[in-house]
């Protein structure tokens, strides 16, 4: 089976922020784990943006295991939204998108958003002058 990459957001309830789920994803499910972003504060809701690489079957099983512990798993793709109808393609967001997930199409001069390159740093959200980029965390 081929190796695939998936990006997910794990949301830890306050009682599970000290859980060792990530250790088990590596050790028990043979996944390469890359933490893109994390906010973990004792006794508060914690969130980790993870990139997982491994066999698809192992990723599915690993995430089921994480969910069984009470940790919410969401696909990263669902969490950042560019409202293309309202975007005017001014280009202010490009300055802060170091991943180049937001780009200007050199033919149409329209802003394009490539979710696969986004690491949810949220810089574009506060910079967008029309507030048409939103993160639903």
């Amino acid at each position: 089976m081929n190796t695939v990459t998936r990006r997910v957001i794990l949301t830890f309830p306050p009682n599970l922020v000290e859980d060792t789920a990530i250790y088990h994803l590596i050790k028990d499910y043979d996944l390469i784990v890359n933490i893109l972003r994390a906010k973990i504060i004792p006794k508060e809701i914690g969130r980790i943006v993870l990139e997982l690489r491994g066999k698809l079957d192992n990723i599915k099983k690993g995430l089921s295991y994480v969910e069984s512990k009470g940790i919410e798993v969401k696909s990263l793709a669902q969490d950042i939204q560019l409202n293309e109808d309202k975007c005017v393609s001014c280009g202010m967001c490009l300055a802060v998108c170091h991943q180049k997930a937001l780009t200007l199409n050199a033919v149409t001069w329209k802003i394009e958003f490539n979710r696969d390159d986004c690491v949810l740093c949220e810089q574009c959200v506060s910079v967008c002058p029309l507030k048409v980029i939103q993160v639903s965390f």
Partner: protein
Amino acid sequence: MKTYEEINEKIKQGKAVVVTADEVCELADAEGIKAVADKVDVVTTATFGPMCSSGVFLNFGHADPPIKMDKIWLNDVPAYQGLAAVDTYLGATAASETEGIQYGGGHVIEDLLSGKTIRLEAEGYKTDCYPAERVTVQITLDSINQATLLNPRNAYQNYAAATNSSPRTLHTYMGTLLPRLGNVAYSTSGQLNPLINDPEYRTIGFGTKIFLGGGIGYVLGEGTQHNPNQLRAANKVPLSSAATLMLMGDLKQMNARYLRGATIKQYGVSLMVGVGIPIPVLDEGIAESVSIRDKDIYTTIYDYSIQKLSRPTYGRASYQELRSGSVQINGNAVPTNPVSSLFMAREIAAILKDWIRRGEFFLVEPIRLLSRDTRFKPLPQKDTAASQKDSVKS
């Protein structure tokens, strides 16, 4: 040589040749300037971006009992009170007194245009004419008498590009400027920019009929900070921010797609304005001006980390270079990003072209052209006034 009357007659007969400022470049490349002068009647130009010096005059109609409005808020955004009883001017950059710069005059203008209900609160002082001291009502664009967009400074002829040599990120009206020359931000629609296509103001002036915010507007004359004396290249195009326009139009016939309230991070509220200006190709000189390309239009890159009126520069770049995604500064490729929309500017130029082709929009010959000798002055320094005072005494 053509006249306005001849071009308007052709528009009436549906025979006028109208192209955008992008399209005219292709014709000039293929067939030359003389062909442009012979074949083309009108070239449409456009720009779309944040233009802070914008606002709207409103007349609310009288309350019963009447009030002389002495303090005015629209959705908590303060508006100017020093006019007649129920007249006001709402500036695009005025910030909400409850939400700060997250909502302001620009947003109220867009909301009015979108048909939303706006809360008007006013306080007055009691007089025999105006006994009421307070009023709170809901208004809409339809419910009020007049809403006249009047923008003191729009559609800059070229604009300086911005970078930042300091070690910290700057939040400016040119957007985010990353530390240590991390990016160059530029504005202006380049070869589509109205005044760049008429560099010596031969056709744009008082009375010119234009596309403004999706409807019809007019040029009232030079805008504030009009600077025709800016340094120019051999092709007459200024090498940085130069001339400006004061624009006016009835908000009630505009379209919210082309007037957008904006919040520029840690800077303030603004209004994104869409402007389209037709340029009649009266002779070969104008044919040459409208055929200018991005590669021949240069702007100056300024260091915004120096918080002085006179900023050091990092040389010049053409719009072709700026649009390529990076420019060379001190031997390094620095990423570029626009802050005004070429996508929307192209859309506006195409719409204006369509209006003229369909015989719905005729050209108006200006009564007076823009000044070519206005001096652009800074604010006098504090000690200048003191020394003047001294010289009067002595």
